[in-house]
């Protein structure tokens, strides 16, 4: 993150921590102003959408470390999201005494253990081969979620999952859950910033650029790849566990290929190798379906089929991926930065021009 070497500062902090503080402050205020307005086109329940986005954010921030920084692709992260979700869902519904927070923890641990078991052999592969192996992994997980009926409830899934509660305090409303999940996301952001600025972060970026040179400089590249993969699966498991306690029911249809693709699209659209980018991508894509569903109210005459997002979401993600790879390969976050710099420069030029005219 400290790309320039010169320390830029914001709010008296190193730039990254300044940005983090601004983001946390903003997220804290969202529920205060974002009331759904009944009867108007702005009837989206922003807090509800942001709750879902928060569960995705856990997974996407981890995936960004893996894809954006270490340069290793995964098209199977829905599997780990699902493992986290099923673990806590099954534990907390079968064993009624099982504390939900322990369920979430168990989901993270199981996702991490399976991530490690899978990562050790799979991360020997590179590029397309790694993409295909992780793709297969996602499919296997989906089949297991569907077929292990005695455990997962088959296509029906798991119903009546209790809300998350910690020492007697239940996060049983959208608002409570909102603050919980985004506080955790803020912690993950903090962890990511710390990590990327450290020797480990430099090691990851180095192995992304040249594995041979990173090896030669003493970076244990094989170990680093496995560790960052496991870290990303633990975070995906956390996101999935939150998802289960937020939705209160889960079924295999959620944890399919298009969720894995959605995660990767969020990373790419926001900005690979940019911590804030991951966040921007999550929020952008989380609001896309409700905005599309609201379109006919804003623009009369839009065909009904268009609002049925499920029909063409993969096509849309595909188009977004292509467009961003071609025109904004470093994502929205970077594009915004450049746009701001460009406008600034134009503005300054204009000001200089005006000044010059004045003194003519």
């Amino acid at each position, binding site marked *: 993150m400290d790309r320039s070497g010169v320390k830029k500062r914001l709010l008296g902090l190193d730039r990254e921590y300044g940005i983090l503080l601004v983001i946390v402050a903003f997220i804290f205020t969202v529920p205060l102003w974002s009331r759904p307005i009944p009867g108007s086109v702005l009837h989206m329940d922003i807090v509800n959408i942001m709750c879902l986005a928060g569960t995705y954010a856990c997974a996407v921030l981890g995936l960004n470390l893996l894809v954006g920084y270490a340069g290793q692709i995964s098209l199977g992260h829905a599997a780990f999201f699902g493992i986290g979700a099923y673990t806590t869902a099954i534990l907390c519904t079968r064993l009624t005494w099982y504390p939900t927070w322990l369920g979430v923890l168990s989901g993270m641990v199981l996702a991490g253990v399976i991530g490690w078991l899978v990562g050790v052999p799979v991360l020997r592969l590179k590029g397309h081969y790694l993409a295909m192996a992780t793709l297969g992994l996602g499919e296997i997980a989906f089949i297991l979620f569907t077929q292990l009926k005695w455990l997962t409830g088959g296509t029906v899934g798991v119903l009546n999952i209790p809300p998350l509660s910690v020492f007697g305090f239940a996060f049983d409303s959208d608002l409570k859950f909102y603050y919980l999940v985004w506080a955790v996301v803020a912690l993950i952001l903090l962890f990511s910033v710390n990590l990327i600025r450290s020797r480990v972060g430099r090691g990851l970026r180095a192995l992304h650029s040249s594995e*041979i040179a990173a090896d030669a400089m003493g970076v244990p590249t094989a170990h680093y790849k496995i560790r960052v993969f496991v870290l990303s699966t633990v975070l995906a498991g956390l996101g999935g566990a939150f998802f289960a306690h937020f939705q209160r029911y889960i079924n295999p249809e959620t944890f399919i290929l298009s969720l894995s693709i959605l995660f990767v699209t969020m990373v790419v659209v926001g900005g690979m190798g940019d911590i804030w980018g991951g966040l921007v991508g999550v929020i952008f894509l989380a609001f896309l379906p409700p905005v599309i569903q609201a379109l006919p109210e804003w623009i009369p005459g839009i065909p009904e089929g268009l609002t049925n997002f499920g029909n063409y979401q993969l096509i849309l993600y595909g188009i977004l991926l292509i467009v961003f790879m071609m025109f904004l390969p470093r994502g929205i976050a970077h594009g915004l930065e450049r746009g701001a710099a460009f406008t600034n420069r134009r503005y300054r030029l204009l000001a200089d021009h005006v000044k010059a005219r004045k003194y003519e």
Partner: protein
Amino acid sequence: MNDDPVLLDIDGVTKRFGGLAALKDVSFTVSRGEIKALIGPNGAGKTTLFDVLTGILRPTTGRVALKGEIVLGLRPDQITDLGMIRTFQTIQLFEGMTVLENAMVGCHSRTSAGFVSCGFLMPWALGEEKLIRREATRTLEEVGLETRASEIGTNLPYGQQRMLELARALASQPDILLLDEPAAGLNQYETGELSGLLTRLRDKGLTILIVEHDMGLVMDISDEVVVLDYGEVIARGTPEVVQNDPRVIEAYLGIEAE
């Protein structure tokens, strides 16, 4: 072990790729504090030998010992940890990273903070970070790049990129530095600077094994020269001796020596 004048002991290293023997029974030693040059025509096996020494390739047979410890079978990063580090024939700087960050990666083998302690900003990780920054800055000063610390490494002019590769390797404070054609593409002035730097480093006690085609540089700085041809050591000795060795002349010029 540390009194042993032999730092690197290469003993009977053979490397076959299918039927082709890239290295045939190569043996020589590098002593502490010397600059040893490894020369030979293109395809003689010099880079292959470097790859074997640094753990990228495994030899078919043979033994390599660093400070009395066998390094064969270790991973490249483990060999770097033991104090042997290399540079590359084609520049391999890390993209998108500043000059300082590139040099900081070089400190990897001397630090140990992991994912958890870095992510949670443990005090020892922060202490290490300070040390890394200081060491990296010091090595940049050594090669004269301190004023460019905040630029992106791959944006530097070619000669300075070579110097940065050298600085990155030096940041690990190695016992022995393996340089793969460090003067390739440098102009005369830059080669002179490099020559001065390498001699200075040697005088400070660093051991250097250098592969180089620039004979002026090789003859200038090396204490001893080993000549490889078709994977075999055909001559060794002081620069003067090697220069006048008929087999060396033949290997380079391809004519029958009289």
